Every structure is written in C-alpha cells, then in structure tokens.
C-alpha cells in the first residue's frame, strides 16, 4: 500500500509539474554587478546607448578620468587628451587647429566632448570610427597628436606604481600582464560618457519654468526653432535639434566654394565613405556651450558667433553637395543679435565647472 501511495504521489507530482505554462518560466535576469555608476542626466535627454561590454563603473570612470588627464599618453609625456579638450572650454581648446607634441598642427579643430556619449552616428568630424572606444585608440598613435605607440604606452602603464591596481579595480584583471590598449580606451570611454550637460543652462531653466527669456532671446528662440510665421525661420534646428542641439548628422553647410567636388581640400565624410556625394560633409557639432567653443567649423575659420550667423544669413557658397537647408536668410542686424542672444542661453557653466570633470592632482 505504502509503495502504491508513493508511486501515485510521484506520478501526480510529475503531471502537475508538466502543467506549468512555459510562459511562467522567464529567464533569470542576472544583474550586471559591474555597473555601479549612476549617470545623472537631464530628464528630457534620450537613453544613452552604453555597450554591454563596457558598463560604467565607479572604478572604471575614475581610471578613465585619470588617463584622460595624464600626459603619460603622449610619447614625451607632455600632452594628454585634456591638452586639446579643456573642461573650461567645454572640452575644446580655442584653436582652429590643435598642435601635437611635435608642434605640428592638425587640419581640424578639436570638437567639444559634451554629450558625446549620446552620439551613435560616428565620431570625429568625419565619422571615421563608430564607437567612443575606437575613437580613443586614434590620438595616441596619431603623429600629429600624441605621437606615441600603444606597445610603449602599455609598458609604461604596466610599470607605473598605481595604474596596475587601478586597472585591477576597474576591470578585475588578475595580473599586470592583462593590461592592454582595449582596457585603456574602455576606461577613457567610460569617463567620456559621463560628460553630460547639467540642467543649468538658461535654456533648460526656461524650459522648466525656472527662468524667462529676455525679449531678444525669445525672438531668437522662435527663429531657431521656427516656432511661428511671425519671425524668420533661421533654419538652425534642422541640424541642431533639441535636446542635444545636434542631430549628429553630416552636412555640407556651404562654407567652402567648390565648382568641382575634387577641389575640396578636406573632403570630410566623403574621404571616409568614398562616396562623392559625401564630399564636403562634416558632423554637426552640438550648440550647447557654443559660446565657449570658438573658433567655429571643422577648420575653425570663424572666430566668432557673429561670423557664423553672418555666414548662414548670406546663404553660403556654392558646391554640388551643399545642403538645400542652406539658403539666403537675409537676417537684419537686429535678427542676428536676437539669434545670438538665444545661442548664449545654451551656455552651461555648471557643466564646465563640475569638479568631477576637472583634473585632479595625483602623486
């Protein structure tokens, strides 16, 4: 009898279990225990796409920050990323062309690093690399930038009195021999993803109802976004849309006259894709903190925002690939002033003074 009861109980148990709907058997989600860094972002910002193989961690961001500011990255230990990307200038350097360790000038202006973690459309002015990690690989060996080589740099890092333990904390490596360039650029990319706007520009405050535009700023705002037919459409937001004030798309904005596309000295995106219809196109930079990032355009040809506005008002110069959005705006002096007043509301001094983004003193 007891045996029979056992058999019955066994069979009933099997049958009962088989009744469970597979839908209830959700896969167990293993929390990413490595991701312990909370990114504080403005509420109207999009979701940042962070690669699953490089989650933000406190130790990783701290290591990335240290590397970003450390001249160990250059061959002669005189320059770091921060030499051309200064926090006080929204991570630009006020130069048309940045100079590398050998005193050689590059051919393009240093781009602002503000909010670049949101970019999913290629890095540099010409979009030549797809990820922030890949971007960080380039300047170290570029002969007109840090002019180092990765093998030498990695050896120096391995010999450093502090870096090995910082890499261990950030990436859980078991030995110094595991340090490689892939981890260096991961750490730098982690730090760069934290370079997000504060919510303290006047524009953001006005949006939240905590401040009001002056009459000039308000009309400039209207022109920028073409809010009403009462004021001219300055056509700005097509390429510099909210909330980042860039769409990160590539445009030929008519700054270079060329009756033959081959006449473009710097072919921009066209040199990367090999497509002649991309010649003269460059990635639209963010206009957040634009007041701090002179000179302007990929080659720093305009020293002031007044010159930039004058260019767009004129309708630009002819070339085959110039965007149809570039057309004569015929802005009056007053309208130019109003547009400028609005652009200055995008200045975010809290961001540039954020202690988390400043160089620290290390031993």
């Amino acid at each position: 009898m007891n045996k029979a009861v056992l058999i019955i109980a066994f069979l009933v148990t099997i049958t009962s279990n088989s009744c469970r709907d597979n839908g209830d058997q959700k896969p167990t989600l293993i929390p990413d225990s490595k991701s312990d860094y909370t990114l504080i972002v403005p509420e109207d910002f999009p979701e940042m796409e962070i690669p699953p193989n490089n989650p933000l961690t406190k130790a990783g961001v701290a290591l990335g920050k240290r590397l970003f500011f450390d001249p160990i990255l250059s061959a002669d230990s005189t320059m770091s990323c921060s030499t051309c990307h200064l926090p006080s200038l929204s991570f630009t350097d006020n130069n048309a062309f940045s100079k590398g360790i050998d005193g050689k000038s590059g051919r393009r202006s240093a781009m602002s690093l503000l909010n670049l973690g949101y970019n999913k459309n290629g890095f540099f002015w010409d979009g030549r690399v797809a990820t922030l990690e890949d971007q960080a690989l380039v300047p170290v060996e570029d002969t007109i930038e840090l002019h180092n080589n990765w093998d030498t740099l990695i050896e120096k890092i391995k010999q450093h009195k502090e870096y090995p333990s910082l890499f261990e904390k950030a990436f859980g490596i078991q030995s110094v021999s595991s340090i490689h360039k892939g981890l260096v650029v991961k750490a730098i990319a982690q730090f760069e993803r934290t370079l997000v706007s504060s919510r303290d520009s006047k524009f953001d405050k006005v949006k939240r109802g905590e401040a009001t535009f002056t009459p000039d700023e308000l009309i400039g705002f209207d022109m920028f976004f073409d809010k009403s037919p009462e004021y001219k459409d300055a056509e700005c937001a097509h390429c510099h849309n909210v909330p980042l004030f860039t769409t990160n798309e590539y445009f030929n904005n008519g700054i270079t006259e060329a009756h033959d596309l081959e006449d473009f000295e710097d072919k921009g995106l066209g040199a990367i894709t090999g497509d002649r219809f991309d010649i003269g196109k460059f990635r639209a930079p963010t206009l957040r903190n634009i007041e701090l990032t002179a000179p302007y355009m990929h080659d720093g040809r305009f020293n002031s925002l007044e010159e930039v506005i004058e260019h767009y008002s004129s309708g630009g110069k002819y070339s085959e690939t110039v965007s149809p959005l570039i057309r004569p705006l015929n802005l009056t002096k007053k309208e130019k002033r109003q547009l400028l007043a609005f652009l200055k509301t995008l200045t975010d001094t809290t961001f540039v003074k954020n202690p988390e983004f400043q160089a620290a003193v290390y031993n």
Partner: protein
Amino acid sequence: MRNLLILTFLSIILMSSSCDNNPQVEITSDVKLNFLANYNSELLLLEKEYLYAGDMPIKFSHFNFYVANISLIKQNGNAFDETELVEIDFVDFPHNLNQVDEAEKGQTIQINKVPVGEYDGIKIGFGVPADLNRTKTNDYGPENPLSMASHYWDGWSSYIFSKIEGKADMDFDGAFETNAGEGLTYHMGTDDVYTTRTLFENITLKENETLELQLNLDLKKLFLMPNPDFDQNGDGYLDIENFESVHAEDRLVIAKQLMNNYSEAISLTE
C-alpha cells in the same frame, strides 16, 4: 489497490488533458512589405537629375517618411476587420546614383506570425498618428524610429512625418544653387496632415509561404497640386519656384496636400 491505481491513472490523464491551455493553434506566416521609390515611374536615385513639371531639372537628397498602423483588412459585412502588421516604422530611401543595386532593393519591413487567410486589401497610414505624436523622442530607446531627433520639430510639437529635400535648376542655367534659392525643403508634420490609404486587392497569405507585397511610391506624384493658388503655372504640380520650402505651420495647406498625395503616389504589386 488495483482500482486505486486505475483511478489515479485516469485522474492523471484528465489532468494532462486539462493542461492544454491553447487548444486552437493559429496558423501564421510571415509578410514582407517592400517599399520602392520611383520618380515618374523611373527608379529614384538621390542626386540624379529628373525633370519636374515644365521640364525643370530637379534632383533629390532626402526622401523619407513614417508609416503607421499598417493592417491587412478583411471585409466583414459592411465593416472591415483589421489585422495590424506595423504600428510605426520609418521608410527611408538613402541611395544615390552610385548605389543603383541598393536602391533597387528598396526597404523591406518583415512582419512575422500573421494569421494566414484571404484578405481584401492593405491599409497604410502615412505619418505619425495623433496618439504617438503626443510623445517625444526621449520617450523611446535608441532603436525605435520615434527616437530620431532629426525627425521631431519642437516648434510644432510634432514629429516630421515626411522629409523631401533636393534642388531644382529653376533658372535653367545648368547649376543647382542653394545660395540662389534653388534648394527644396519640404518637411511635413502635425496631426492635421496625417493621412491613410487603403489599397484594395485580393491578398492571400498561405501557410509556410512568406508573402511579399511591393509598395511603389512615385515621388513626382507627391507634388500634384489641384489648388490653383499654388499652381499658377497650371501644369497640375506645385510651383516649386515659388514654394521651395514648406514647414507645416506656415504652409499647412501645401503640407496637407503633399501628405494627401501619398494616397495617389502609392501602388501595390503582389
């Protein structure tokens, strides 16, 4: 004892039968919607020169639009039952005259597990329906078509439903000069310009067979203009030399006509 065992086995069989939560399994197949762009019945290639009304040379650099609430429809008495295929998606034709092979492929949206059967047509919305148009780009993850900042216009509190950009040689001097006002930018949005079209066609979706539907869009037809206020040339098309730019709020009538023209411009081949 023996009876007890028999009873138990019967109970188990009954319990096993009661486990079947889904006795009627719906038979489904996949559907592929292939969008292909033409200009005046010729394959559309960006940067290629075509002729507009009055033989005006024209070329395009952007042509894209949102599609929404795409459904297969089936007549049921005086009404139609709808089987939704797509809630929202973005159709873009980015290929230029050096990319003929890619352009010929068009853009395909694949929908899996659609109930097989006979349908009487397909319904398509052009633009972003009002409920979704109340949302903003930051409401969506990076892969969602509604997350694109380039297709939201804060000034209208609306998505840009469709973008057509290009240039026309309005003075017939052989050059397309945006700095001489020859750029064309038509950006349509706001709830008023959302439009739908139902294409009636016998559509049969069979088991184990992917159904491919080709949707052809003739870009030239988007410029059809029945309103003489915007067609003073009297050729049936928008006077692009006078209305080279459309932003919905200031030229809503034109924007609405261009979006309505999607109904005219689309055709279906199975």
